[in-house]
């Protein structure tokens, strides 16, 4: 087990270098001069431009820029953003907020998604099932910003249950509404996935055998149906974490959450190499870790793929 985890973590090393290199190159290859863009309509003095270029190493060839950046990372220095703040500080300030948002969203979609999906699957064709299918279809077909605005208007403005924007420090109670919005599409997917998985499992031979052993339905549903049905759902959660991070950008914009989304969006617009690469790399590493956790969870659920020691 420990060997397996170690091997998986070692795999993250080439991924780290690959992603940083690729993203750095893409930012480098973006058209336009980021320094000139900083001055907008004004024409800066050539001396100032040259100084800024030297400060951000933009006068060096691409590969040198990249190596300087990577070298900095290993000394805990993620570079300086164009607004003059160390990128490391921005990371520390914004990532916990977005992570908190994503984890709350993940919690909502998993718990509600599985519960609703399970009931739908067990009551296939009944009213509950039909209405949950309709609701999930609506949620899937709506773009996330529509759901966000509707949620903001209904719960924030009309009912006054939640604040329309998130305050400083992003307290958990402020994040609940944005998290619900962020979770909505994945929730609908999980409902459908769980439902079809439960229906499929319910028809399998071993469920009939469980009944023939004299077990009660109350035991068969959680022990023999739910656990087996969760396997595809857990697999989905792994890829879904990435979707959550992407969705967070839009949701954070609407609810004014001081998270990764806004900062990253601005950095991309301004071609801020170190900022973009640092953010994306942290996201990639997070994604790798989440995938590792999900793979371990998968082995826990299904002994057939438990890892060889």
């Amino acid at each position: 087990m420990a060997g397996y985890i170690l091997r998986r973590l070692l795999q993250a090393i080439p991924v780290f270098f690959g992603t940083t290199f690729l993203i750095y190159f893409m930012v480098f290859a973006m058209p336009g001069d980021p320094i000139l863009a900083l001055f907008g309509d004004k024409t800066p003095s050539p001396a100032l431009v040259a100084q800024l270029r030297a400060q951000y190493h933009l006068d060096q060839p691409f590969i040198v820029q990249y190596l300087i950046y990577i070298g900095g990372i290993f000394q805990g220095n993620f570079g300086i953003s164009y607004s003059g703040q160390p990128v490391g500080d921005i990371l520390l300030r914004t990532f916990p907020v977005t992570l908190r948002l994503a984890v709350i969203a993940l919690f909502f979609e998993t718990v509600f998604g599985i519960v609703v999906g399970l009931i739908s699957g067990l009551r296939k064709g009944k009213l509950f099932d039909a209405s949950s299918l309709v609701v999930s279809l609506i949620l899937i077909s709506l773009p996330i910003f529509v759901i966000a605005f509707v949620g903001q208007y209904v719960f924030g403005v009309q009912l006054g249950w939640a604040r329309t924007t998130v305050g400083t420090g992003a307290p958990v109670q402020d994040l609940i509404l944005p998290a619900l919005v962020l979770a909505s599409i994945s929730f609908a997917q999980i409902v459908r996935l769980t439902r079809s998985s439960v229906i499929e499992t319910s028809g399998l031979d071993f469920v009939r055998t469980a009944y023939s052993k004299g077990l009660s339905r109350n035991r068969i549903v959680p022990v023999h149906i739910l656990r087996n049905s969760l396997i595809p759902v857990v697999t989905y959660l792994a890829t879904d974490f990435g979707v959550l991070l992407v969705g967070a950008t839009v949701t954070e914009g609407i609810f004014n959450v001081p998270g990764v989304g806004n900062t990253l969006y601005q950095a991309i617009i301004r071609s801020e190499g170190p900022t973009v690469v640092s953010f994306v790399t942290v996201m990639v590493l997070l994604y790798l870790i989440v995938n590792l956790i999900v793979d371990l969870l998968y082995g826990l659920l299904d002994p057939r793929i438990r890892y060889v020691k």
Partner: protein
Amino acid sequence: MSTPSPRTPDSSGTDARVPLLQITNLQVGFQTQSGVIPAVRGANITLHAGETLAIVGESGSGKSTTAHAIINLLPGSGKIMGGQILFDGQDLTKLSQKQMQEVRGKLIGFVPQDPMSNLNPVWSVGFQVQEAIRANGIAQGRADVKKHAIQVLKEAGLGDAEKRLKQFPHQFSGGMRQRVLIGIGLSSRPKLLIADEPTSALDVTVQRTILDNLEKLTRDTGTALLFITHDLGLAAERAEHLVVMYKGQVVESGPSKEILANPLHPYTQRLVAAAPSLASRRIQSSAHKLTELDYSATGVTEGLDLIETAEARAGQLAAAPKREDAIVVEHLTKVYKIRGNKEAFTAVDDVSFSIQRGTTTALVGESGSGKSTVAKMLLRLEDATHGEIRIDGTNTAPLKGKALLDLRRKMQPVFQDPYGSLDPLRNIGNTIGEPLNTHKVGDKKSRRDRVFELLEQVSLPRALASRYPNELSGGQRQRVAIARALALKPDIVILDEAVSALDVLVQAQILQLLSDLQTELDLTYLFITHDLAVVRVIADNVCVMQRGKIVETATTDEVFDNPRMEYTKELLNAIPGAGIALGV
């Protein structure tokens, strides 16, 4: 078929005892969009305590549905529409699910058909046994339940049960899983055990030990056994009483030996004649000349033809001059490297045999003996590690491109599963015509004509060309697979368990078809099977494989009359029905 059979259960002697299970006029239907489709139509079955009764019939005859109706576990939209199921004095059809829960497991045990799919893959075997023991209140407390579980598994034939409790189903072989399921079924000493084709998915030799064990356990505990099977030979060997079902009705019932010796209903007569296990048995007991047997009362055709053909062939072949070899296999070896394991696995070990043109050689062995790997290497779907395969004198290993395509044209496969080997999205005509397109044979019209010709050759109506696989029965699908194999006029056909998944009557028809086609088109067959009973009626020569090696090669007659190896004898003894004396 509505005329009641003259032999009713009552006529087999008046019985004053109250039966343990009495099914009266049972009606089961399946709700579909186009109304209720009846699956069981007025079945009557009586079983006394401690006795063994077998329900025999082809798939779709309602035998499994009857069994599921008893414990009220009908699949999907199935419903009991009428009749009575009296068990120990109470009508099971009138019980609520809650009350039924008390009956299931505790009073009526159930052993399902497919051991591969009937254990939950995510729970340990021990967990699944203990759960049954706890649910039925056989034992309380952790230690006690565990002790009981070990005892149950040991009885069922798992000697090292203590060690294996924590293991998962995928770490068990099919036979061991079935032992676990039998253990679960019998764990609470039920009065009745329903075994639904308990060994159909297992190898013949395993089948035998499992059934012996089941017989012993039910005898020791005084449990009545309701045994469901499609194999008449097996049923007659294992059960005192037989119930023959056909299209949802009980067409005949009574003592096994009586039914076998003197089948009254035409369907039973056909079953008796067609069952390969019985047919081969009958050839063995050559005290009677087959054609002298009394089939006069009936329209027995398929089975008899089959035996006659087999006998006639044996005679002809002995007289015919020796022809050249179509297939020569020399020192064929296949080694698989296993990940994370230093030792390689030798699936096929120094196998050599040859097949004369126009003859059939059967490759026989249990699953895992390497027989399918040989077929894959012959077809060049796998490369051999060592050794040589020569088709018509040409070594096939170096062939590439056009030469390989030509080889494929000469040699065609038919696979086991008629459901899995046809593309559900292509109609039958396209499926059969596909090899013609691939090899660019003729123009559009001539291909069409060829498809019709092929359909006729395999005795299917032309209209089938525009139908889809899901509209066809298993037997029809296998005919389509054969037609596809014949499309390119091959010399050699490799039949990998080509009739194993079929019902006995259909099996007999397909075997007959294969035999006719061989005579007509001068085909060479390599017939791969685990079932020696089928070998008897189709093959000229037999190679017996065990653990990758050929342990015996001989003509079919030699193998059956005078098997040299212990393993071959074991396989022969495992043919169900081998132990019963036939009244004919």
